[in-house]
């Protein structure tokens, strides 16, 4: 009985500690001038990785903030350093748009800039 209780307690504690600290890499594919998925939910510390399957160069640009060039057939990452909702677009093809909702991590101020 006791070993079982310790097991569950340990499992719950492990789960509580592990989840917030675990940074993920979220992939956004670019195909035929479309970001997919166009809207994603992420958290501070995660990385967005754009995978460009087009023969055209694209960018993921946030006005007044980051600007990432993703060459044709290449992959480019951005580390998310602050919480908030950001809209991004491609500078070369402004009809390509995406949105990232970035949640703060508990214990993090979320004030860092990219």
């Amino acid at each position, binding site marked *: 009985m006791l070993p079982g209780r310790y097991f569950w307690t340990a499992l719950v504690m492990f789960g509580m500690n592990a989840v917030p600290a675990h940074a993920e890499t979220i992939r956004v594919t670019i195909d*035929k*001038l*479309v970001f997919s998925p166009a809207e994603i939910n992420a958290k501070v510390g995660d990385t967005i990785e754009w995978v460009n399957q087009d*023969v*055209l*160069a694209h960018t993921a640009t946030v006005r007044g903030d980051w600007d990432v060039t993703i060459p*044709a057939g290449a992959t480019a990452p951005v580390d998310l350093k602050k919480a908030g909702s950001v809209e991004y677009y*491609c*500078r*070369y*093809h*402004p*009809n*390509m748009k995406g949105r990232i909702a970035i949640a703060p991590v508990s214990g993090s101020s979320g004030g860092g800039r990219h």
Partner: protein
Amino acid sequence: MLARLSAAIAALCLLGGGAFAQGAAKPSDPQIAHIAYNAGVLDVTAAKQAISKSKNKEVLDFAQAMQRDHEAVNKQALDLVKKLNVTPEDNDTSRALSKEAADKQAELAKLNGPAYDKAYLANEVAFHKKVNGALETLLIPSANNAELKGLLQTGLKLFQGHQQHAEHVAAAFK
């Protein structure tokens, strides 16, 4: 006879309302391939003129993007017509488009500095708008082959993106 009549009507329409006049005869797939490819070539020619004439960084970036994109997409188009065993066929619409572009090039060649930049960007907005209209109302609906239609639909998104890009850069010259 019917073909000649259609060609005559198309030619009249071309005289009256630019390369993509409404009511022009429905183009065949080889003609559509030629028109779409030619539109890309003409914009690359315009971009090369801009790269040799302009001193403005935004204009140069835009022109380089036009050259890069249209060359890449036209390579895809050539690969597709080869795969489909389609030989692009020159036609009145393509010829009218080429003539309009050549006239514009000659006009732009006389300008310099900000006057050139402004006129080049205004023409890029107008050119992409015209091709977008043709893709939407004539070329995509007329295309028979599904792969050709698919490439034209991607081409439409690309041209719409270029039109917006040109409008953004042009806004700085107002």
